[in-house]
């Protein structure tokens, strides 16, 4: 038995023991798993590597923190209440259309930033109260947000796993829009209708109005929406206009949050932001633990063992692994899945078949994005659950069928990649 496999098994065993039996937090369990893996691999306690591993997620953690501040401001200023009231009163007569539009709203920040976290924490937080108001159960609403955020992350114009996979084989990020739209739009529409439609067929508008704050919108008017408008405009302009200064998603969230302090109801920003950060620290800690874990996997050679073992099982297994192991690797990092597994898989597929390379890369990138649903990280699921105030396991259970439909669509696309090659033109 390879020593790398022994290291991998030790890391997983210690993680599961610490998390499930000792009930330690996921973050601490992952650190313990990493330390034990390094010891078994003869690396001692590799402080440098444990520390360096956490830096994998520094940018993500800053985006999450600043998005949480933005979300707090939008909620407390009354903008969220006003937006909910406006959407429900205008669209309650056409629930299917309303649900699809709300899904696109959830997807939009993901499409622009390539991040499911940004999508779920910005648009997801805006849409969640509407979904709950129209009678969709919390766990289903959370699942809609999680799937919507992931479809947004996968949809064009920005799909970062596709860029990472393409970058690994010197394939320019050109021609991906068609395949990615084909993969994401039908799945998003199916998910929101499957999860939500039956709960909003017989909406009683008067009952709904009783749960809405119709006054805050009248009192502050359009200015309530200024932080949301600023956020959307800055995200779009900074991505689509190359000459515009690159502010970065964190700064855009912060600018929008600061503007929101002056456009609606007054509140104690310091107290509310502390509350928001308290809720997010466990997820940030989890990301740091994951960073240490994956760095240790590489340090002891277990990463190589995993990838080579997958490749050794033949082309059929490579296809199967593309829709099982690759999203599962998202439990560690969906971007990591793209870089570590996506690149060698794409190379093997295009070297051994005559598939359309862009369609295959798009499908693999889509599969990587689904990894943001995988526990323990499950960034999209975690934050969707937090928004609807549930444990994330309940939200994830409701994501199973949409997830399987996404996988089925991806399988159909990869098996018919040549027929879909016209989409890359």
């Amino acid at each position: 038995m390879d020593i790398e496999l022994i290291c991998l098994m030790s890391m997983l065993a210690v993680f599961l023991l610490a998390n499930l039996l000792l009930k330690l937090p996921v973050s601490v369990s992952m650190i313990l798993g990493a330390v034990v893996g390094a010891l078994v691999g003869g690396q001692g306690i590799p402080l440098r590597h444990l520390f360096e591993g956490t830096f994998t997620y520094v940018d993500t953690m800053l985006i999450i923190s600043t998005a949480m501040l933005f979300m707090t401001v939008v909620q407390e200023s009354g903008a969220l209440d006003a937006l909910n009231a406006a959407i429900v009163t205008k669209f309650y007569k056409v629930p299917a259309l309303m649900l699809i539009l709300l899904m696109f709203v959830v997807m939009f920040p993901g499409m622009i930033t390539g991040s499911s976290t940004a999508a779920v924490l910005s648009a997801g937080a805006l849409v969640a109260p509407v979904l709950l108001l129209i009678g969709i159960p919390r766990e289903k609403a959370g699942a809609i947000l999680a799937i919507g955020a992931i479809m947004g992350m996968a949809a064009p114009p920005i799909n970062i796993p596709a860029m990472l996979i393409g970058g690994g084989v010197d394939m320019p990020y050109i021609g991906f829009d068609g395949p990615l739209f084909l993969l994401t739009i039908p799945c998003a529409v199916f998910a929101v209708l499957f999860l939500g439609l039956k709960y909003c067929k017989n909406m009683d508008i008067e009952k709904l109005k009783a749960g809405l704050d119709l006054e805050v919108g009248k009192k502050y008017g359009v200015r309530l929406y200024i932080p949301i408008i600023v956020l959307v405009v800055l995200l779009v302009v900074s991505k689509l206009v190359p000459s515009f200064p690159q502010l970065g998603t964190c700064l855009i969230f912060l600018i929008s949050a600061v503007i929101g302090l002056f456009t609606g109801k007054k509140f104690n920003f310091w107290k509310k932001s502390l509350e928001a950060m308290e809720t997010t620290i466990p997820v940030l800690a989890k990301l740091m633990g994951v960073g240490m874990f994956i760095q240790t996997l590489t340090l002891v050679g277990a990463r190589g063992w995993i990838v080579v073992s997958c490749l050794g099982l033949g082309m059929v297994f490579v296809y199967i692994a593309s829709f099982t192991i690759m999203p599962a690797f998202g439990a560690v990092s969906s971007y990591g899945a793209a870089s570590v597994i996506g690149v060698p898989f794409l190379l093997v597929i295009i070297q051994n078949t005559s598939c359309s390379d862009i369609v295959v890369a798009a499908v693999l990138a889509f599969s990587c994005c689904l990894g943001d649903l995988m526990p323990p990280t499950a960034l999209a699921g975690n934050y969707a659950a937090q928004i609807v105030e549930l444990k994330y396991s309940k939200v994830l259970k409701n994501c199973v069928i949409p997830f399987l439909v996404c996988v089925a669509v991806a399988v159909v696309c990869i098996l018919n990649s040549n027929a879909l090659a016209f989409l890359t033109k």
Partner: protein
Amino acid sequence: MKRIPKHILTASALCLCVVGLVIYLAIGFTSQRKAEPIYAGPGVTDVKMLSHWFPALAGSNGDTEVYILDSGKPGASMLVLGGTHPNEPSGFISAVTLVEYCQPTSGTLYVIPRANNSAFTCTDPQEAAPTKYYIDTKNGTRWFRFGSRATNPIDQWPDSEVYVHASSGQQLSGSETRNLNRAYPGRADGTFTEKVAYGITQLILAQNISITVDLHEASPEYTTVNAIVAHENALNLAAMTLWEVEEDLSITIEASPTNLHGLTHRELGDYTNTLALLMETANASQGRLHGAIDSELVVTGQDKFYARAATYGAVTVPYTEAGISLSERCARHIACLVQFAEQYDGPDGVISLGAMPTYRQILANGIGYYLSDPQ
């Protein structure tokens, strides 16, 4: 949300431990800023900094040594870039070998061993790479830094989610924002990395460099490996070189894609008169399939997982348990560099690198034999 109860003493003690740990680790991380010695050999006639051609780089971590080896006879000129990606050691070590061993007999050779000097000062998270590797010379052991593919975030951060190449508008993953070989031709008012690229472009323009060769490595599963990638203007030179070296080594030529921007072989060929070429050798410490990386893997190139992957047909170069050593990878680079110079016959004359070791000599003696001893 249940508030966490305050335990001020415990929290303070933990904070102090964290501060101590961070200081200890920071000392380790900053030690990577100490540069490995490069000893100017008998052929070196001048050493300038890149800021000589682009003064805005002066005093920054982007400024880097440009070794000038002037034969004293007029002729053509060649620029060799090593260390564009400091996690690709054969490019760097080949450039260092030129500085320490080469004595051109006509024309002028310019060598930048650390093209992205900043990227030598850090390693990539998730890659668990060693910070140093060691090469035996005739009378000692030299150390060299194993760095990152990208500029140190201390010098350029944060990355945007999407990197937009300035002159073409091409979109790439944000992780490429700090990649020097996606930044050409560079911008005088751009990012740190774009400024370094701009400095190199200015050098080429100012010195009217005839040939520019960017030395790289790629993982053994990559499609462009053991290859010369040539701008369309340099395809003839690449073909003549291939003809001369093919008795010793197998190598392919690829035309620089016209739709992949920011790379030396595309942009330097488009924006200057230089014949732009890039070379790739197979580096087992670089890909996704290798086991644990240490100095041994970097130098010997032996990895059991790559050997296993080769039996599955998952690598694109011949790979056995014997590995592909750093000496063999440097031998490829140096053999082709010698021939690029020999085969060039342009309006500005010729260039010859003089008595450089052959491919077979480097394989037999090891690359350390041609490096200076540690001083």
